[in-house]
């Protein structure tokens, strides 16, 4: 049984690694958000694994998952809002060009 927990955690770690790589390496705001989404998905996997294999009786574990999902949705809504605003004013959502803005 514990092997399944370890496997799930390993997959979570993998998703997190890929997500981190993406968030750091991409130049475009929208792509960076995809990296963040993947990292949050990794968190989801870990949370469900912990709930399932360690505390299946505590539904607050599942509640936690719902909250992380909410965070994902909220992050996307605000992120895309910012992307639209930036694109409108600058014609670009490339992060390199954000740096250029900072001077």
């Amino acid at each position, binding site marked *: 049984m514990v092997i399944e927990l370890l496997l799930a955690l390993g997959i979570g770690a993998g998703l997190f690694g890929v997500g981190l790589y993406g968030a750091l390496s991409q130049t475009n705001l929208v792509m960076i958000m995809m990296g963040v989404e993947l990292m949050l998905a990794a968190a989801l996997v870990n949370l469900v694994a912990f709930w399932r294999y360690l505390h299946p009786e505590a539904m607050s574990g599942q509640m936690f998952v*719902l909250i992380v*999902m*909410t965070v994902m*949705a*909220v992050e*996307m*809504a605000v992120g*895309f*809002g910012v992307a*639209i605003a930036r694109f409108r004013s600058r014609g670009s959502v490339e992060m390199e060009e954000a740096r250029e803005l900072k001077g």
Partner: protein
Amino acid sequence: MSAMFQYLVLFGLTVGTLGFVLCLYGLARSVGHRRAEAAKDVPATSGSLSRDPVWVRYHVRYYGYALLFLAFDMEMAFMYPWAVVYRQEGLTALLDMGVFLAILFLGLLYGWSQGAFRRQR
């Protein structure tokens, strides 16, 4: 029927559907291959031969709805478990969800007032 068995059935249905489609395509393939001819691979645009690429940065006009949808969509994650226990919990549940939905509805009203619910032109 245990839950796990149900998932297996669903998984089997998916695989079975894929198999069915592959068989169908195999059958169709046995009838003949595609013949490469002039202009056959150009997308059909009512008789005009338009070779322009169309994969461009596409301007959607409903992004106001999309933004609010992304956030508002989460509401149903909470509503389903709530609906299941609604009868047992009674008035508490009604008030609880009432407050929650009122909060969200405020967001919708704000978006509405600012013109998120329209075609952006």
